[in-house]
């Protein structure tokens, strides 16, 4: 018997992210978000096809997650006001979505309850009274309204965003910022001479770069809940295959 591989289908990026957090029984905060960043990116990269039109949203969320992860590893990484807002907004949306999702599960259960049926109202005798608004022209216009009322994507040609490229571009931008954050940290620690701390930062940075790289290329994971194996690379010449 062939093994059926079921790819879970997500409603969207929030749905996927919430599942990852709930699976680990975490509360929604930046620590939880940093913890699931790798897995989120791995899942997005592993998606055979994304729900139509949601590609950009999946990638945008990956960018925010990477930023949260980077900041958790490199506290010196500066983030803009806009980014700080994005992070807060993400936490809020996720908590909001969690509540609504819980409510939707309760609704699903509620739908098993007996429904309240319509009555058969009185039948009123049809009575034809001329209505000046009904003309050949107004009906033609109404038919055009019906045609225009169908969703636009049925009429327009499909435009598909290339996911991989978008994620690469996004990480590319982040890489520059991470590099400058590292320079900043070296400068700051140069005079202090606390080797352990400096070492920690470098180690963190390497870990981050590996994460970044893994995000672009591939994540090798041992089984569904196993460790994610990351490829190492030189700091100065990251290769994006």
């Amino acid at each position, binding site marked *: 018997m062939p093994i059926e591989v079921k790819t879970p289908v997500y409603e969207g990026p929030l749905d996927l992210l919430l599942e990852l957090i709930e699976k680990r029984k975490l509360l929604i905060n930046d620590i939880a978000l940093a913890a699931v960043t790798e897995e989120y990116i791995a899942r997005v990269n592993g998606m055979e096809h994304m729900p139509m039109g949601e590609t950009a949203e999946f990638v945008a969320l990956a960018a925010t997650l990477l930023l949260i992860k980077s900041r958790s590893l490199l506290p010196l990484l500066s983030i803009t006001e806009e980014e700080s807002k994005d992070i807060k907004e993400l936490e809020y949306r996720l908590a909001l979505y969690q509540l609504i999702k819980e409510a939707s599960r309760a609704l699903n259960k509620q739908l098993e309850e007996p429904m309240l049926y319509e009555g*058969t109202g009185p039948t009123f005798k049809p009575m034809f009274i001329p209505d000046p608004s009904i003309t*050949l022209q107004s009906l*033609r216009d109404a038919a055009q309204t019906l045609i225009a009322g169908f969703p636009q994507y049925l009429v327009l040609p499909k435009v598909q965003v290339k996911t991989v490229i978008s994620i690469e571009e996004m990480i590319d931008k982040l890489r520059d910022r991470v590099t400058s954050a590292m320079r900043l940290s070296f400068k700051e620690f140069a005079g202090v001479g606390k080797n352990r701390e400096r070492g920690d930062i470098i180690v963190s940075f390497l870990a981050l770069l590996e994460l970044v790289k893994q995000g672009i290329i591939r994540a090798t994971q041992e089984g569904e809940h196993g460790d994610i194996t990351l490829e190492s690379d030189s700091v100065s010449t990251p290769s994006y295959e």
Partner: protein
Amino acid sequence: MNEHTPLKIAAHIEALLFALGRPVSKQKIAKKLQISEEEIRAALLIFAARDTGGITLIDDGTTLELRTGAETAELVEQIQKEEYARDIGKAGLEALAAILYRGPLTRAEVDFIRGVNSTQTLRTLTMRGLVRKIPNPKDERSFLYEPTTEAFAELGIHSKTELPDYAATRAKLEQLEAAYRAKEDEAPHTS
């Protein structure tokens, strides 16, 4: 029904009459509820005791019927008159256009083409004598809506093929409907 308390029987009789919307013989009620006519009589006492003047149960001896008082009848007639006198509105024109260009259609098909529920709109169009219900050859439990001869007369045409851009509009609607249904089947994240 499991418990045959008079209260429960009264509720079931009320619901049955409301759902059917017409007088029903006691014999038929007894059969439908699997109760005796004696049990019906006991339940009728409950109706009498709690009559509030809104909906009243009329018992002519053999049949039962729900009705409202004369005061309400007047008010309802007045509301009906207003509705007859009013233009059918944007919703009415759209539903009528759907039935003219793409019909005959079931209610669900009109809903699908408009993207909104058309129950009330179709009720208005029917009352106004612009469309009528005919049996659905594909499903005897449902109906199809088609334009009336009065509707054609009002437009000064003899058949729907004389409607402006009839063939092209019908073809376009058919194509969009098919594309949308295909899209719905393809996307597992929507229903």
